[in-house]
């Protein structure tokens, strides 16, 4: 260790927040009760700083699982806002209510049996989708900035490809559904549409089909058994000698020089 520099020990470990001395404290209101927390924390970490231990309302802590949908207002401002607690910074005078659960409508279906007309099936499963009044509340509410109203409109029109792509970033937090005057569970209808699109509308991968029948026919079993039984030095040699597919090679066109182990 160099003499003149003081080594720096990290103070905060894991996900616990230890504010440095002099950190600015701000008031927030968790379900109406006031707590003082250091500024710059997410709502999730501010709530933990206040002393809560999450059971519900916390999952990935990284903005992708949708467990932490939250509504909030600032004191003195009429606007109702929404966000993910793990991604939204807590600001002064924020009044917070998380929505860890919301009842949803999700009829069961059998994906393999939806061959004929997926749009008709959507109408049968989710008739309420066709009663959207176009108020736009869902779009304003979505923490992923998805134009929810638009994907609902695409569904109504039968553009399932459009709806599948438009709804792709959905983390299924349920905030849209909680505010819909037409009582639509938008994100569940979207889940159905994406699966129908992925299975029936996106073209299937022919090369995959062929490879699957090769694997099922046991084509690779012997070679793999051989590798598993091989001495480590021999495996190392094979590993080092691998030929690397060029980054810009065109899928399906490029072939290695040595084709014996394909």
């Amino acid at each position: 260790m160099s003499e003149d520099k003081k080594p720096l020990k990290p103070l905060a470990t894991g996900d616990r927040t230890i504010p440095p001395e002099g950190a600015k404290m701000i008031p927030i209101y968790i379900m109406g009760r006031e707590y003082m927390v250091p500024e710059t924390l997410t709502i999730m970490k501010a709530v933990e700083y206040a002393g809560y231990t999450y059971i519900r309302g916390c999952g990935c802590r990284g903005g992708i699982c949708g467990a932490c949908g939250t509504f909030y207002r600032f004191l003195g401002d009429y606007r109702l806002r929404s966000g993910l607690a793990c991604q939204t910074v807590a600001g002064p005078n924020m009044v917070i209510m998380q929505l860890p659960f919301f009842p949803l409508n999700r009829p069961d279906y059998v994906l393999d049996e939806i061959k004929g007309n997926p749009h008709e099936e959507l109408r049968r499963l989710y008739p309420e989708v066709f009663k959207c009044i176009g108020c736009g509340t869902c779009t304003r509410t979505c923490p992923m900035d998805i134009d929810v109203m638009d994907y609902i409109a695409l569904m109504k029109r039968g553009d399932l490809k459009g709806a599948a792509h438009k709804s792709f970033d959905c983390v299924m937090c349920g905030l849209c559904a909680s505010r819909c005057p037409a009582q639509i569970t938008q994100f569940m209808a979207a889940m159905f549409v994406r699966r129908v699109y992925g299975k029936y509308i996106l073209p299937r991968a022919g090369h995959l089909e062929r490879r699957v029948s090769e694997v099922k026919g046991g084509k690779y079993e012997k070679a793999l058994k051989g590798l598993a039984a091989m001495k480590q030095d021999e495996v190392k040699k094979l590993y080092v000698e691998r030929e690397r597919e060029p980054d810009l090679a065109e899928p399906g066109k490029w072939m290695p020089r040595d084709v014996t182990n394909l």
Partner: protein
Amino acid sequence: MSGYTPELKELIRKVEATRPARVEKARKGEHFPALTLEQRQEWLRKYHPDYKNDGRRKVLVGPNRGAELPEEIAALLESKSRIDPLAIDLKRTDYEADLLVIGAGGAGTAAALAAQEAGLKVLVSTKLRHGDSNTVMAEGGIQGATQEGDSPYLHYLDVIGGGHFSNVPELVAALTNDAPLIIHWLEGLGMMFDKMPDGRMKVRHGGGTCRKRMHSSGDMTGAEIMRVVRDEARNRSGDIKILEFSPAVELILDEEGRAAGAVLYNLETKEYYVARARAVLIATGGFGRLHIQGFPTTNHYGATADGCVMAYRAGVRLQDMDSTQYHPTGAIFPEQNVGLLITEKVRGLGAQILNAEGEQFCFPLEPRDVESACIIRECLDIGKGVATPTGRSGVWLDSPMIDMLHGEGTVRKELPAKYIQFKRYDMDISKSPMLIYPTLHYQNGGILINEWAETGVKGLYSAGEVAGGVHGRNRLMGNSLLDVLVFGRRAGLRAAEYAKSNRPGVKLTLRHVEAFNREVEEAGIDGARTAPILLPDYSPDHVRARQVG
């Protein structure tokens, strides 16, 4: 740039001061020298958390007694049960099923689907909501040899070479053989893979691959897999019952020592339940939330190694539990992004790693473990780390170099998700650098299994991140999503055969738990904690100090 504090802005000026010269050198292909192989070993030994001997010790009880493990894991394995085994009435069965799946991430859900297809009634116990897991967080992709120029044979070589040849060969063979089947299964479930117009899968290289075989679904591959398999499980709710917020806390055995169920705990009502089953699968995922040596983590809230704890008490050996994947570049600022993964691509595009003086101190593309060691050394030993307002320390990742090297707009185009995640907090990573530190990413080791996901206890299966051996001591990106589905499905199928051909046990017992508690006492471990811990505790000191009741 207004997202930075005045102190940090001051330090950024130092980075900006050295940048033109660094970019000039980078253009000429001049790099900071990489470590020699000897230096690598030395740096790793001194600074990598896996190698450092302080923070490790021999575990005193159980099947791995005597093994050197990180303090956090040793202490966890030496904990006593949360329950008094005698207080649980095993004659009163609250739930009954053919297969009990513990953990509803990718592995658990895949197993439930496979077992249901084979005719079983499945009960799934999970800690948070169905799908709140590490699976949902995976961004990059899933590997599988599906293209003509590729084969499971070559995939095998990549996996075992990446794991420094420490993997269990039979597990690697199973993994790579089944990979195309898994991708095909997902396609049939309606997963939206990235495809060419004719349906051909788009594939990319990953670290350590000889063929392009990384399949993806945007930059949320894991989330798409999770929501698709979860949706399918919901369609089969008649046969697959999911109990959320009801984690398992102990395994139950029968009079012959076979797995026969588990004690479940309702996190909300604080009741314990007895769940009885003919076969049991542990699929509880990784251990990032143990925060080994204080590291932040990329893992989800429930990643606390519960499955290892329960299996250990039932006599199952663990392997490679001292091997952890630290990702060198986890965000540490702003506080909201702590633990957030900053992909390797950023360094691949030319961003350098710098200390508080704005100086380079390591080659930015060392292997993951070596790179992590260099950063830790700079912060803790040399003392040239940058302190954040919340008391963390780290180094700069100079992302603005990317646009200077490859042209304006490259950052936004190549790293859209990261760009947005910082933009939210008023930081433009194409203009100012990010603060990073190594972050705990993946549990390499775990429960010892064979290629059918069987453990040493009859009727007990394990699959996914909680199991060890598949990746040896180092995992390549894209093989974990694959692993959880391959071995999840294999476990489901094998459990179905087992459940149909074996008479269930008559008498249930928790005697192994009693015996384990005794062993802990006899080993003289004082103040033994209780485990599984289920959820990490993030309450601050001033709150804890007042929780005196």
